[in-house]
């Protein structure tokens, strides 16, 4: 049977998907053990034991000063920023993408601007960003939005502009105005693509979140990572990064399921 036609069963799929990740973990353990054999004090690739020790403090002991469990407080703060940032980015990407995609004059006017904003690296302009928006939550959320939204906008705009011309023509013969085409033809068809764009943006969004938290913050997963980085405390950094990966993968899976549930017409095989 050709490989293109081999579809693994559900149970097998989970096993297959976990396999390379497990192998990587094993490779890590091997390398870490090797480094520790050479230098028992090695900090760069800590062994699971020291990670567990370091994390248990953050997980289960209340911080005396703030009265919070550090790990959970970090997680909450970061998720909140990420959620707001990604939410704003998604909504603005949808709105701008639709308008740019459907209306050629608007595309001609604002397309180049969106491109320019998309390619300007926001971290190069951090001083201006922080000066304009202060050092509070706004600036951190804004960095995520500025970092992630333009790419999403361009993607949605390109997708909408690429909808079959027949559909737009058809809608017009059925009496649809530009606005009605936007909300009834382009919007619903852009939704699955928007969820896909969100999935692809999860990685960059975390990067920008962490960059923002690295610069001005006093709580958050990125803050903690950059705080302990001064001491090369990889026994905290690696579990934190793994935790970020788990959170992101869960969000990714949730978005996939949501797309299948909400827009079955976009996923069923057509013939």
């Amino acid at each position, binding site marked *: 049977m050709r490989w293109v036609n081999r579809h693994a069963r559900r149970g097998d799929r989970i096993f297959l998907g976990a396999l390379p990740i497990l192998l990587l973990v094993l490779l890590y353990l091997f390398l870490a053990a090797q480094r520790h054999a050479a230098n028992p004090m090695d900090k760069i690739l800590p062994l699971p034991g020291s990670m567990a020790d370091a994390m248990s403090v953050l997980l289960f002991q209340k911080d*005396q000063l703030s009265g919070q469990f550090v790990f959970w407080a970090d997680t909450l703060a970061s998720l909140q920023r990420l959620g707001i940032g990604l939410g704003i980015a998604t909504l603005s990407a949808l709105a701008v993408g639709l308008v740019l995609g459907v209306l050629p004059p608007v595309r001609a006017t604002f397309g180049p601007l969106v491109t320019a904003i998309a390619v300007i690296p926001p971290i190069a302009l951090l001083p201006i960003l922080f*000066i304009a928006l202060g*050092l509070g939550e706004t600036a951190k959320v804004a960095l995520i939005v500025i970092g992630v939204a333009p790419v999403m906008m361009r993607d949605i705009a390109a997708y909408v502009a690429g909808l079959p011309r027949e559909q737009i023509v058809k809608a017009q013969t059925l009496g649809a105005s530009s606005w009605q085409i936007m909300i009834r033809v382009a919007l619903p068809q852009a939704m699955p693509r928007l969820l896909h764009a969100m999935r692809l943006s999860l990685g960059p969004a975390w990067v920008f979140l962490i960059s923002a938290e*690295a*610069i001005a913050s006093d709580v958050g997963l990125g803050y903690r990572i*950059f*705080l302990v980085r*001064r*001491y090369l405390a990889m026994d905290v950094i690696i579990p934190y990064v793994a935790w970020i990966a788990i959170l992101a993968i869960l969000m990714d899976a949730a978005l996939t399921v949501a797309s299948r549930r909400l827009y079955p017409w976009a996923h069923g095989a057509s013939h």
Partner: protein
Amino acid sequence: SQGPDPKAEQRNEFNIGWSIYAGWMPWPYAQQAGIVKKWADKYGIKINVVQVNDYVESINQYTAGKFDGVTVTNMDALTIPAAGGKDSSAIIVGDYSNGNDGILLKGANQLRAIKGQQVYLVELSVSHYLLARGLETAGLKPTDVKTVNTSDADIVGAFGSPQAKAVVAWNPQLSVMKAQPGVSEVFSSAQIPGEILDLLVVDTATLKANPNLGKALTAIWYETVALMQRQDAQGKAARAAMAKLAGATPESFENQLSTTHLYTDPKAAVTATSAPALVKTMTQVRDFSFSKGLFKGASSADAVGIAFPGGKTLGDPQRVTLRFDESFMKLAADGKL
């Protein structure tokens, strides 16, 4: 909320920025322990002590007017806000680095061995200054080494690479790298005591209009420092709390303190600020900064004026933008707060 250049007006809410460094940890501790509130209430004002994770960004934000005061080294106070035309007053000279900054080499224990190496450091910072002073003492020219700009957050990781053999850094990064096998410290700020100063600078105009701010800050500082110097359980708890705030273990933090010369006594601070040695130090620092092009577009090192206690000035007296102001420390020394 404030404009770019806060006009000399009376206000009662102020923001002070700080970043993590052994000599500045009293600030967040004072905030948490209620010392800030206590003194601010006394002077009828409100002080927000705001952490900025990235040191340079904290100074940039101060320069931009988002903070009324910031913790900063003498060199950065000169090259960033002062050179940028922001009139700043150093009202607290908290400590000088007495081994908190150092040059490390892998596989060599002589500073001369640095010749021809790639040196990883935060360029244009006190590390760069320390390197220049070190090369000077070893009879080397600045061109004998090649510098690679390395962000302070990543310098420990970078030094883990087999490629990196020479590094200049400050604590806590310094102590982490020093602990690695085969690494030795070949030069440290202990060899140039009093040249790397850690200050609290405040916008001069704001200070003029609100002298209470200066009083409150000085009072907070010396109460906190006194507390942390105590060798009893209370002092230990305070230091442990500061360690935690810095993300360090208590032992590591004690270690860092041991290479920090804290002016716990305001009298000592006043003396150091008024001493002619400070003028000499600042001359060296500004000459170094000018040679590195840090005084943008200026034709000489005199372009930025520095004022010292007793009316002495260095550089252009018409354009003084950095003032060492001992008056508030003096009030503390005299117990008048």
